[in-house]
């Protein structure tokens, strides 16, 4: 290991101020000092409205923003910088594709495949598209451990399939979906693939050319970047054909009393003043990830996940959802405790300063499919420690007793 536990922690000012054991990384990560600094320095030294000021400072602000776009391009291995559209978050990115692509290019009789484990942000936009265009929504089911089988794929894909919206990694089960296979089948029937990378982007390298997905969405805040910045990657050939999503400043070439001609990509799809400081912060987060290294991130997360799973599995009343293999969890451990409601689990852990999430995790269809009302989710990052896992498990052990069982 290149970095010691201590060294890793020192990068994150949050841990200097709070004694929480933070296990809610799937909701949002913590941010290293250098991300906070990058954002602050932009406002301190380069602040002007990008694209608007015809003065030196305005151009510097523009350059900083466009450099961030290039960094994201390289991060995703995209072919062109204009394939990177900055948004507010993954939800906005997915809505952009749904409104600008889905509503325009789908029609009655077409089929949209979504997996049953989609976050509501990658489900509701497609329900909307189906309603508006008359296309049909088809669900791709999964097994109890999250596996999507060949039979399920056979069943979902037809010659009417025009779009597949699927998550790379489930925010509940942590499992990784067979994207290569989905893309191969989709492209065979000339359907496009929209990949929700919100939960994978902080855990593994993503290469949009290798994956050959048509669109990809993620949020900066789940990968140590600032809140308020998200990304939509789209193949140039699609983005070029898409009408603007939002209209107003920045996205035009010229405007008359009756109409407008739109700016070229990417600006056509980025109406209004952009969040340049957050884009610069996201760039710093990407550099940080590269400095640590994917291999280090992966091995550390796997080590911590296996360590936590082992101890949790030793408690008979605790049941972890998803795969038995710690490698297929992306640090996400969603679990139930027999006889104890997940909100009570979270409240009891909270009393010991342990932050976890409880509920249906914006994935109600998945919970209905698994026939589980709700669950508690602990999600780890590479900068968590074994001591933190120990304290978490120490809190889980007496949990049922605290709730009055076995008296």
């Amino acid at each position, binding site marked *: 290991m290149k970095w010691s536990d201590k060294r890793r922690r020192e990068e994150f000012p949050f841990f200097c101020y709070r004694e929480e054991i933070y296990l809610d990384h799937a909701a949002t990560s913590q941010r290293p000092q250098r991300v906070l600094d990058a954002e602050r320095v932009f406002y301190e030294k380069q602040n002007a409205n990008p694209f608007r000021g015809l003065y030196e400072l305005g151009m510097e602000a523009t350059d900083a923003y466009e450099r961030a776009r290039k960094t994201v391009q390289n991060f995703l291995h995209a072919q062109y910088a204009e394939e990177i559209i900055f948004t507010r978050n993954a939800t906005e990115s997915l809505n952009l594709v749904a409104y600008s692509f889905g509503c325009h290019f789908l029609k009655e009789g077409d089929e949209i495949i979504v997996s049953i484990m989609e976050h509501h942000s990658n489900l509701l936009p497609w329900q909307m598209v189906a309603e508006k265009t008359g296309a049909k929504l088809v669900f791709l089911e999964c097994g109890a451990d999250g596996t999507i089988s060949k039979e399920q794929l056979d069943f979902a894909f037809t010659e009417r399939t025009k779009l597949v919206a699927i998550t790379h990694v489930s925010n509940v089960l942590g499992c990784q979906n067979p994207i290569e296979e989905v893309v191969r089948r989709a492209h065979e029937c000339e359907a496009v693939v929209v990949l929700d990378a919100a939960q994978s982007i902080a855990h593994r390298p993503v290469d949009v050319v290798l994956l050959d997905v048509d669109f990809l969405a993620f949020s900066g805040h789940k990968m140590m970047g600032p809140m308020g910045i998200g990304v939509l990657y789209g193949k140039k050939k699609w983005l070029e054909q898409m009408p603007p999503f939002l209209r107003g400043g920045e996205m035009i070439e010229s405007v008359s009393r009756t109409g407008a001609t739109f700016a070229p990509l990417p600006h056509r799809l980025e109406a209004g003043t952009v969040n340049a400081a957050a884009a610069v912060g996201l760039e710093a987060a990407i550099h940080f990830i590269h400095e640590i290294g994917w291999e280090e991130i992966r091995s550390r997360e796997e080590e911590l996940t296996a360590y936590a799973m082992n101890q949790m599995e030793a408690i008979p009343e605790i049941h972890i959802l998803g795969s038995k293999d710690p490698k297929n969890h992306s640090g996400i451990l969603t679990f139930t405790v027999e006889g*104890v*409601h*997940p*909100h*009570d689990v979270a*409240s*009891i852990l*909270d*009393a010991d*300063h342990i932050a976890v999430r409880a*509920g*249906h995790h914006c994935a109600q269809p998945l919970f209905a499919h698994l026939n589980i*009302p*709700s669950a508690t989710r602990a999600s780890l990052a590479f900068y968590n420690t074994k001591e933190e896992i120990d304290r978490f498990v120490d809190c889980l052990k007496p949990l049922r007793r*605290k*709730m*009055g*069982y076995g008296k």
Partner: protein
Amino acid sequence: MENKTFYHEILTDHNLHPAHKHDLHDADYVLEGVNPNCGDDIWLKVKINDGRIEQASFLGDGCAISQASADMMLDLVIGKTKEDALRMTDLFLRMIQGETTESELEELEEASVLQNVSHMPARVKCAVLGWHTLKEILENE
């Protein structure tokens, strides 16, 4: 921290061994209360005779706070007049907003163990679910 005292015996007892969680075939009023946040879902059943809550029960699922709160509520209001029960309901709802005096708290008996919920906005809806449902029944009676 405040909620250390939260899951003490009174609450867990009412959750694990609720006295009033059963069906009530001859109920005059049946109303469902749902808290979509937690997935708490209770059915409140009330039998009213001569302006008095003669019998009442609840069914459903949910977190310990929603279940125990409903059970403690029924301990308090069964046998009471409609007006008294409504007054209790108001008292409880004010307690959850942190607006009750010590002597008012005493009136709420065991239900007063939930006063610390006022510090946990995420759990307020669980605690008030049964009470809101009762209030709705009584006000529309």
